[in-house]
């Protein structure tokens, strides 16, 4: 499989081993009664479909999934007859909270676009938990999401993996133990942003030179800290180097502890970026948008780099001109880990339909992909990209009970996410509209849930 075991902890670098990560998650699952959904068609995202199946959730975890699951007395039982169950939908590329609605200047907090090198900023320090689009994404079945900085800069900063739960502080949304990620961007955005202001980078070769220079600095920074830690370990007197937030993040990438999420459209640029990784010894976890990834499917499979992309978006700029609906299916048929992502506020509400478009395009191109596999594009595979696939993304005993009950087959445009569970807590329920959480912004205003 394209990704190895996901790291389970996020050591703050270069913090001492015992020191807790700063800005820790204060997320707590809401306790709820044990719940069973019975008689449903279950797409487990492990490659199988269970008809007339039962899924049992207890204490926030999946206890059992199958046809012959005994429902304990006292468990809340939901009739899933004619309905479908999938893992919670996961979006590996979102800007909710950092580019919230309404999209006014006072809210534009996703791009620190005054300098191309901003590895030091953290998206979580921009997230506005009252963004009403979190509510709408929940109505679309989204239970976890990776919120990234924008793509104006070569290094946009750190992304943050969130649980899509109602919250007042971002710490209450942070996915406990999810690894940190670094947003990088190739192509038109950084070179256009800064070239038009008469400064570097102004070209694609300028972009790459900027990356390389930064990784040289990061390697030197990592060496200084390693030397310090070695001396300390030996009990020798040593003065800690001064922390540099940006280099700290890049050094974390070089140590394999921070996952690289690289915005990159063109196949030739992705190939160059993979070589940048080889030159400096880091791995690219995923290329994002990557509308030309289908041109280098074998290379991406070999490199075990995932692709997070759309099916329907293309042509909005030159580097997106060769974007095709078949991208995901071609990549999947070559063994590449594919995620369908949103990058936008409307699409995050219907990643299931976007996946259906990708599936149909594959079929048209003669690539038959089963729905049992395609469901991974919006569940397990984005979880891999975010380094949380050991905890969520598929319906398996022991995993977190992130579950969606759909009114019908989730690849249908008519499918409605009727009930959404995050770690066993019912966070969205169309049967009980009054119970649906409204963000503070929505209170007293005629904002529609849907």
């Amino acid at each position, binding site marked *: 499989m394209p990704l190895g075991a996901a790291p389970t902890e996020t050591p703050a670098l270069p913090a001492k081993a015992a020191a807790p990560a700063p800005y820790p998650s204060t997320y707590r699952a809401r306790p709820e009664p044990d719940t069973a959904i019975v008689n449903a068609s279950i797409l487990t995202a492990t490659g199988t479909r269970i008809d007339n199946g039962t899924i049992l959730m207890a204490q926030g975890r999946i206890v059992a999934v199958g046809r012959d699951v005994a429902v304990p007395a006292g468990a809340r039982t939901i009739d899933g007859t004619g309905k479908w169950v999938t893992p919670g939908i996961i979006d590996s590329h979102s800007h909710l909270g950092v580019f919230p609605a*309404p999209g006014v200047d006072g809210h534009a907090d996703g791009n620190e676009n005054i300098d191309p090198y901003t590895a030091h900023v953290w998206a979580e320090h921009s997230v506005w938990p009252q963004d009403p689009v979190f509510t709408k994404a929940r109505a679309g079945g989204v239970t976890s999401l990776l919120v990234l900085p924008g793509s104006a800069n070569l290094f946009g900063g750190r992304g943050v993996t969130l649980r899509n739960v109602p919250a007042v502080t971002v710490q209450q949304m942070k996915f406990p133990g999810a690894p940190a990620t670094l947003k990088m961007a190739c192509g038109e955005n950084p070179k256009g942003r800064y070239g038009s202001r008469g400064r570097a980078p102004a070209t694609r070769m300028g972009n790459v030179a900027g990356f390389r220079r930064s990784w040289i600095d990061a390697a030197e920074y990592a060496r200084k800290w390693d030397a310090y830690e070695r001396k300390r370990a030996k009990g020798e007197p040593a003065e800690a180097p001064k922390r540099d937030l940006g280099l700290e993040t890049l050094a974390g990438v070089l140590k394999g502890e921070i996952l690289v999420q690289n915005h990159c459209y063109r196949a030739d640029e992705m190939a160059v970026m993979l070589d940048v990784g080889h030159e400096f010894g880091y791995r690219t976890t995923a290329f994002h948008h990557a509308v030309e990834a*289908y041109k280098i499917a074998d290379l991406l499979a070999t490199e075990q780099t995932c692709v997070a992309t759309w099916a*329907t978006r293309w042509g*909005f*700029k030159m580097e997106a001109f060769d974007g095709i609906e078949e991208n995901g299916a071609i990549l999947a048929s070559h063994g590449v880990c594919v995620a369908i992502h949103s990058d936008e506020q409307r699409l995050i509400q219907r990643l299931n339909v976007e996946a259906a478009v990708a599936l*149909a395009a594959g079929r*048209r191109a003669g690539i038959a992909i089963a729905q049992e596999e395609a469901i991974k594009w919006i569940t397990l595979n984005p979880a891999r990209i975010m380094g949380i696939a050991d905890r969520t993304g598929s319906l398996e005993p022991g995993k977190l009970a992130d579950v969606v009950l759909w009114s019908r087959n989730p690849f249908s445009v008519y499918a409605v996410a009727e009930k959404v569970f995050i770690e066993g807590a019912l966070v969205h329920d169309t049967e009980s509209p009054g119970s649906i959480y409204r963000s503070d912004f929505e209170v007293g205003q005629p904002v529609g849930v849907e």
Partner: protein
Amino acid sequence: MKSNRLALVLGALLGLASPQTAAAQTFAITNAHILTPGPVGEVEQGTILVRDGRIGAAGRDVAVPSGIAIVDARGGYVTPGLFAVNTALGLVEVSSVDGTLDARTASLRISAAFDVQYGLNPASTLLPVARLGGITRAVVMPDHDDSNKEREAPFAGKAALISLGEGGNILYRAGTAMVLELGEDGAARLGGSRASQLGQLREIFAGLKGRWTQDNAWGLSEADHRALAPVVGGRMPLVVIVHRAADIRQVLGLARDFRIKVILSGAEEGWQVADEIAAAGVPVLLNPTSNIPSSFDLLGASLRNAAILHRAGVVIAISGNDAGHRVRDMRYNAGLAVSRGLPQAAGLEAITLAPARIFGVADQLGSIEPGKVADLAIWDGDPLEALSEPVAVYVSGKAQPMESRGTQLGQRYAKRPD
């Protein structure tokens, strides 16, 4: 698999008759599950007779003259070709490449007189992509160029109706509508506030009743004055892009006071004033997925807008997710509106007959009905589902190539490793 076989059969059959001859536009589609608004309605096991590019007959008991070509739909759905609204098809190639954008003007001398018909590009790669979504006709609309902040431009200009048929000339009808934007963006172009914009618009409309004078107070050019004349008489509809409920009420008032035939576009908060829109007999072009409170103009945006407006009796047409590259999403958007309460038949009507009616061409287009133009799509499943696709598309009875630059690129790279 089934769809591939069907495509092969269709290809073979169409190969018999050269698509360039008039004979090619005379054929029958048999074993069709006809799904159309209008009197024919839904017919399982129906036949559609196409004569010289028009529908000759459609229904259960249609006699097929001997000797004409037969297309066996094998039970697949056959719908009218889809009719897109709010597009810039033929006027855009790459959104960020200015030289490919022809839907707007920065001219200081014209706004209403700007006419998109002269910029249409039949070779646009966007047209086959839209056609593969079953789309055969589209309203192309002018947009605003905001590069010059000093420019006061009340109107975007004149829309046109195009055919998506392969070939040289895609213009079907010019001067289909005048386009105007209200709300935050519109106000910014005319005085900087809603009150300023609406006040000036009232002055302009009042002034149109007289002759144009060089020193008119609102700086309208003679060309703009001439272009607007049919709007005030109700001979050319005025598409008004508007979002907020209060602004929609203002538009209805404007329409009433100046006898303007208004079409609302956007209208995200329309559901809050649905009865008033219905009472005014004003139709709405909308995108049901525009449900984000992305500005204070549309805090009430809701996926249920389409269903609520329809229930109130408003004629609605459903658009795609942008004006160009994602126009093909319009049928999924219709399906999403159905998922939130719009009746199934109304969903199909909102992407076929309703837009044809709104733009005054329902006598020719929009449904499978004897005498109308044979714009048709044969599908391998429910046409509103993303999992379904057209297996054949006809424009004026001509079978269209079922490929685009995108599918060609896909074929080039789809070969699997061995």
